């Protein structure tokens, strides 16, 4: 009888995750060198897998794991779902037959936002961006360009704001530099303090917050065959964390 529980393998998220588990009485045994799997002595029957946060989202969505801790932003991007993003209910299934958010854990805060150049004095709200997209099409015979790695959430959010004529310039790093470098006109990216955006002379649109994200405990879809096993261990994990 084993249950699979994935946590981030590096950085601040990993440290915060280990600290949270320890506070809950579930200290994680340090993994042997170069290994990506370990266990929690207080919770036998639970295998702890250490992988990058975005992989946790992918593998949870596929149903490979019973549970995992990752950011709501990457999980929602994987599911392409903004449904219930403004809800403050705790438990919520994200996307069709997707993972279930069981608890917000209070660390790893990040806002996914739409930001435009400060020099675009006329860009205050999403409706302005819709008009500017029309202007760029008419005056420059090209679409508005949006740099982001959050392709699916950007599409869902822009559709909600009736913006259709734009292209996504896929950007995995230093997205905030895209308007100045000419890769794109505006960006959709994660921010915590907003300082990096300000340094790059970008301003968040008033109604341009797509998602307020933090690290959450998720359960994989219950239709997955992994759930033939491991339910008692996961129940104990949830009880300890909630």
């Amino acid at each position: 009888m084993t249950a699979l529980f994935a946590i981030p393998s590096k950085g601040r998220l990993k440290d915060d995750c280990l600290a949270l588990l320890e506070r809950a009485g579930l200290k994680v045994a340090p993994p042997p060198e170069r290994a990506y799997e370990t266990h929690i002595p207080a919770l036998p029957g639970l295998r702890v897998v250490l992988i990058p946060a975005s992989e946790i989202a992918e593998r949870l969505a596929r149903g490979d794991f019973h549970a995992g801790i990752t950011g709501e932003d990457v999980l929602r991007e994987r599911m392409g779902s903004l449904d219930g993003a403004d809800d403050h209910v705790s438990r919520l299934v994200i996307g069709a037959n997707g993972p279930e958010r069981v608890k917000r854990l209070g660390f790893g805060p990040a806002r996914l936002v739409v930001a435009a150049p400060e020099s675009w004095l006329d860009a205050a709200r999403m409706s302005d961006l819709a008009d500017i997209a029309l202007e760029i099409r008419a005056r420059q015979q090209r679409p508005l360009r949006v740099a982001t790695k959050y392709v699916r959430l950007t599409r869902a959010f822009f559709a909600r704001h009736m913006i259709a004529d734009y292209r996504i310039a896929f950007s995995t790093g230093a997205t905030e530099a895209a308007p100045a470098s000419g890769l794109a006109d505006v960006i959709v990216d994660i921010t915590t303090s907003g300082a990096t955006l300000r340094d790059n002379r970008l301003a968040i649109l008033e109604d341009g917050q797509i998602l307020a994200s933090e690290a959450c405990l998720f359960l994989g879809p219950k239709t997955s065959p992994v759930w033939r096993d491991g339910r008692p261990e996961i129940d104990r994990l949830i009880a300890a964390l909630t």
Partner: protein
Amino acid sequence: MSVALDAARQAASAVFAGALYAPVEPPIVAPAEIFLERLGERFRRLTSFFEDGTGEEKCLRPEITIPVCRIALAAGYDGATHLKLRYAGPVFRLAEDGAGALTESAQVGAEFLGGREAAKAEAEIVVLGLSALAACGIARPRVVLGDAGAFGELVRGLGLEARQQAHLMRLFEAHGSALAEHLPPEGARAELTPLDADLALADTLARLEAGGLVLTGGRTPEDVAARLADRAGRASAEAIPAAARAAIAAFFGLKARLAEAGDTLARFFAAHGIASQAPQRLAALAAELAAAGAAEDAIVFDAGVHAPLGYYTGLEFRVDDATGYALAGGGRYDTLIRELGGPDTPAVGVALFLDAIAERAP
């Protein structure tokens, strides 16, 4: 393609062929701009645009009327005579929720270009659509028709400022008869006053200079200033007076049996002191449909009928099954061919939604 869907396609195509509509096969992939410039905002959101390997912007066609007109023009159609064309093939649309799901659905349709007797051409297309549905085994379909031109006549006749008229037309294109939900609450004060263009430019230049800001994205200070002035103007554009709101709500509430549609619309426009050609158009169409033997009790007028395609100029109609599910739709598009670079030519067409029909066919 399912058996039922294929059967419906063949049955409908046979009806169009019997009426001497010539088959065309417009391309499925088209340059993006031909749709971007013609389709309404709401429909544009449903269109799947992409860049091909050379960076050229393309799309999967979200509808087939525009590609059919382009084929006619490419073949040298000059509008001097009429031209009757039919097609069968897929359209591709993204889900409304923006999540990116792309669906392919099958349509057959007929386009009547250059019919100079408007009501006759419209009646022919409506009857053709009904005959094609009958051939697919659809019992008792119901036609709901309206007139896209009538709303424009109403808006022009309400004594509103030009920018208010433009704003209402934009809302109509995006939201149809639900447009009132997108007006700010009555009595909301315009917080911005219209801004003079020169003042806006001076202000823009001063703020860019003071902030040490460099414009990116190929936009000029003139672009930014024009939009700032426009945004200020928009706030006053949205302040539609109560009397005009009431007239618009009353207009969208108009419903009548086809035989009374012209009179109903005429009474409405007379009561508001507005000149309109729409009542005459509808009365003429009703007479032609009666002459063509269309079952009169199966056709109703509803002023709220509007598809978000952005090119309809007059008659618009939808054919529903008994439960109100749309099986076909069409209308008049008298400016589209000219906008595509062709002659000034009236046109009207109909499309059957084969997936919906196949689900309901016996």
